[in-house]
């Protein structure tokens, strides 16, 4: 049950290009986990000097640690490992939800996390969010970033599925399967309720 005192946390990283719905999904997960009695910490990274998402999350009552004015995979790399260690020692949550900037290459973030020397994570899940409505265009323009996002994921959620055409959804699924055929892929609408099947993939440890 919640708040294991062994100081081991679950870490869930939500990656995806700018505007793919990371914050919306993160808040859904935070609410879900919080309602089950687990202690939630949120880390959010924004490249701009003023954060929007952290203000939004705090207004909803969540505990948020923000990293602003750069990218946690490079200029703020030291900050992210330090913040993880601080959250662990000072707040001791059951789970940390980490949202890097959508401009970050997830591969670089995973390299940064190799320098994390705090308590080991009970689980580390990397969820990639793809914007079904824009993936075709984004693949053409920022292809390497999209490829890395998929390659670094344990699970892919194709978001905005409610508004996407069947062709757009098929393109998204094909894009993922061409890179990592074994990757679990689900269509979602992050604004809506997350299905039990997806919850099980995201949070297999949760009661």
């Amino acid at each position: 049950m919640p708040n294991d005192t062994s100081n081991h946390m679950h870490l869930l990283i939500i990656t995806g290009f700018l505007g793919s719905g990371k914050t919306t999904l993160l808040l859904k997960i935070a609410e879900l986990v919080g309602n089950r009695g687990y202690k939630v910490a949120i880390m959010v990274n924004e490249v701009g000097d003023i954060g929007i998402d952290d203000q939004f999350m705090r207004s909803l009552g969540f505990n948020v640690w923000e990293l602003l004015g750069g990218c946690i995979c490079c200029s703020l790399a030291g900050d992210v490992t330090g913040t993880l260690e601080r959250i662990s020692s000072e707040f001791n949550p059951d789970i940390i939800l980490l949202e890097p900037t959508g401009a970050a290459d997830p591969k670089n973030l995973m390299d940064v996390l190799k320098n994390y020397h705090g308590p080991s994570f009970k689980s580390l899940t990397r969820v990639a969010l793809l914007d079904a409505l824009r993936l075709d265009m984004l693949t053409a323009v920022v292809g390497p970033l999209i490829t890395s996002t998929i390659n670094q994921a344990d699970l892919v959620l194709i978001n905005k599925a409610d508004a996407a055409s069947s062709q757009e959804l098929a393109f998204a699924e094909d894009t993922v399967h061409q890179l990592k055929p074994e990757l679990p892929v689900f269509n979602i609408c992050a604004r809506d309720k997350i299905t039990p099947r997806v919850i099980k993939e995201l949070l297999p440890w949760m009661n």
Partner: protein
Amino acid sequence: MDELKFEPYAVKLCLTRPKNSQKAEFSTAVACLAETVAGRCLSEKGALIGHIKGFATGPDGSYLHVSVTDAARPADIEGHIACRPKSIILTLNVHVFGVSAARLKELLIESLSNPEVEKNALISIVEPIMSHRIFKEKNHAE
């Protein structure tokens, strides 16, 4: 697109309710502003909208959140400033690739004069916080 320049632009805006306008809504002004900025950005050669988002709170704790990722679609609005204050402060982040922060500021200023925006709020820049860092750090979108 030869190189995807990325200069995040952040600004605080003061929105004031126009006099003698009972029907003016901050949410309409904010949505219209974000959509107008997105449209103007897309008119810039080589621009790619990442995310245009804004957030404001009311004195009663209510909030307003706006999000635009595509100039062809309406803005997503979440929340509502319920207590109808005379003014609010909106934080706006404009994350658009291929357009300099200085140019994003110009496009924002142009967008403020959209009649549909002015009908619902008089907007002034409170605090321009421009990030002139050119985002060329390793393996980012370029």
